[in-house]
């Protein structure tokens, strides 16, 4: 892999990590209305996949979506403003944490209905095929979502029509408090690809380079007109499911084991050991990212709330 890509990937992962840490902190200060689902610990997936995408390619995101948007090139400040319910946010405060979209960089939006984004990604793939462009669409969703009917319907449809879609399952072992083993008899969701006659690829979702390489093949395949891939990335969320969840249903040893596989530290270590980036440059980047996150907070906090009457705007196009 070329070092520019690796360095950029590390930067994006760090942006997500520090951004989510900041959201958590603001949350504690009562600045974040509603709930939040942090991407902390899963950064390698969005970044490894999106590093293979072009600006005009599409992604479809989930309730745990901040990281997807950042990885695809959306702006930290406007994401943060949206999370804080400000008019300056991507959706003018109408979407919030679970519904961020930035159509200008191909983020087709996050849905809070688990599994509902999967057919939408298939539709983006169909549109690409009908319009005859060489774009691709990537769809992120969880282990829990893979038990929805939409998963079956939409992947089958993408398969029969040979659409340029990457179905990226972020298997973090749990759907809220439900461990995967309690709701399916297979270990690897990638196996389900066989049912649709498409490749099912399993990868270490905490290893950015592994995700990048797996996604690279799938994107190449999609762009080359050879159809969709189901890519399962094994990972773990480092925080609770949402706002109030202390995640006591997870065994301590399990949590510790996964914390030791932290994807951000892992890539950092790989970059240093390979001499891809100097310690000075690394330190500089880390300062830059921290500043960018602070600037995003300032932008968000300074942004006005929407005027109440805006609640009745944009219902129809």
């Amino acid at each position: 892999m070329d070092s520019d890509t690796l360095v950029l990937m590390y930067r994006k992962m760090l942006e997500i990590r520090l951004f989510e840490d900041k959201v958590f902190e603001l949350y504690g200060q009562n600045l974040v209305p509603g709930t939040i689902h942090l991407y902390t610990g899963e950064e390698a997936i969005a970044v490894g996949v999106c590093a293979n995408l072009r600006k005009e390619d599409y992604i479809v995101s989930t309730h745990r979506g901040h990281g997807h948007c950042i990885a695809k090139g959306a702006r930290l400040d406007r994401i943060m403003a949206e999370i804080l319910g400000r008019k300056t946010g991507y959706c003018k405060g109408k979407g919030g944490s679970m519904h961020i979209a930035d159509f200008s960089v191909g983020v087709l939006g996050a849905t809070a209905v688990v599994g509902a984004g999967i057919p939408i990604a298939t539709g983006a793939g169909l549109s690409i095929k009908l319009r005859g462009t060489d774009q691709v669409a990537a769809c992120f969703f969880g282990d829990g979502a893979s038990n929805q009917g939409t998963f079956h319907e939409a992947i089958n449809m993408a398969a029969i029509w040979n659409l340029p879609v990457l179905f990226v399952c972020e298997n973090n072992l749990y759907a809220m408090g439900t461990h995967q083993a309690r709701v399916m008899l297979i270990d690897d969701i990638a196996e389900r690809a066989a049912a649709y006659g498409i490749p099912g690829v399993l990868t270490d979702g905490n290893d950015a380079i592994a995700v990048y390489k797996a996604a690279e093949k799938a994107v190449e395949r999609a762009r080359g007109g050879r159809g969709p891939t189901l890519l399962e990335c094994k990972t773990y969320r480092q925080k609770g499911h949402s706002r109030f969840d202390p995640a006591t249903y997870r065994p301590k040893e399990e949590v510790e084991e996964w914390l030791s596989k932290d994807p951000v530290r892992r890539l950092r270590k790989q970059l240093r050991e390979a001499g891809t980036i100097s310690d000075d440059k690394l330190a500089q980047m880390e300062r830059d990212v921290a500043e960018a996150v602070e600037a995003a907070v300032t932008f968000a906090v300074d942004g006005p709330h929407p005027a109440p009457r805006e609640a009745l705007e944009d219902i129809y196009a």
Partner: protein
Amino acid sequence: MRKITYRDALREALLEEMQRDKTVFLLGEDIGRYWQGAFKVTKGLAEKFGEERVLDTPISESAIIGTAVGAAITGMRPVAEIMFGDLVTLAMDQIANQAAKIHYMFGGQSRVPLVIRTPFGGGVNIAAHHSQSLEAWFMHVPGLLVAVPSMPSDAKGLLKAAIRNDNPVVFCEHKLLYPIEGLVPEGEYTLPFGAAEVKREGKDVTIVATMFMVHEALKAAEALEKDGLSVEVVDPRTLVPLDKKVIIDSVRKTGRLVVVSEDCKTAGVTAEIAALVAEEAIDYLDAPIKRLATPDAPIPFSPPLEKHLIPDEKSIIQIVKKIV
């Protein structure tokens, strides 16, 4: 103008729009060249435009609409067919939570130019899973437009307008309307959403009716005329937006209102229109508003049972007579 069927009018609208705009495409179960659509609306279109623009899908209603949504937000204008109106239940998340909300929830960044065509209604003895009229459900979801054409010309004009509209449109058809003939303009012909039409002028009582009930109301009006009663029949043509003005103007003229619809009575189309008039035009009324709808029951199979439930010319005449 020539006379064609409602079915052919719909097909003509699809054909003309597909010729006009290459982003328009169709998808649905068995709409292509092997079956040509359960009600043959799409007959010949796959042959004409190719299988890529007239897509036969698996039996996956949720993915049919979800896929259409994804295509709509990325530059296409899909027209999805759900084979029977009752089966929209399987796609309800994609319709009510995704299609209807994307424009609003993402702050106006994206539009969802999507048409969902589906046949509602009873009268063909196929019982509770293939006979419902669920159009009122969609009136309850802001973000959706709802078309309910009763005549072949309305079918053409509204479908062409629906395809050009940037909002998701639930386009309600009715199984008994497909073979009905009427005069339909050739070539370019669109109708605005939110424009009701007085299908028959009268001065003693207003009947507001939709879809197949417009035809029953017109027959009832004809019969009542023989009794010396002048009945006005108003067809809203779209339920969202609803043309309040034409309805209220008619009530102001006649002072009497009967609302007829084939959907269930509770919280249905008749309830909404009656409430509108009660709220905004009660002073014009000389008699209580009457509603005639299908009673709150599933549609039964056996012909005498089904016939007993669904409003028709006879029951319309009876209810009109109660307030004159």
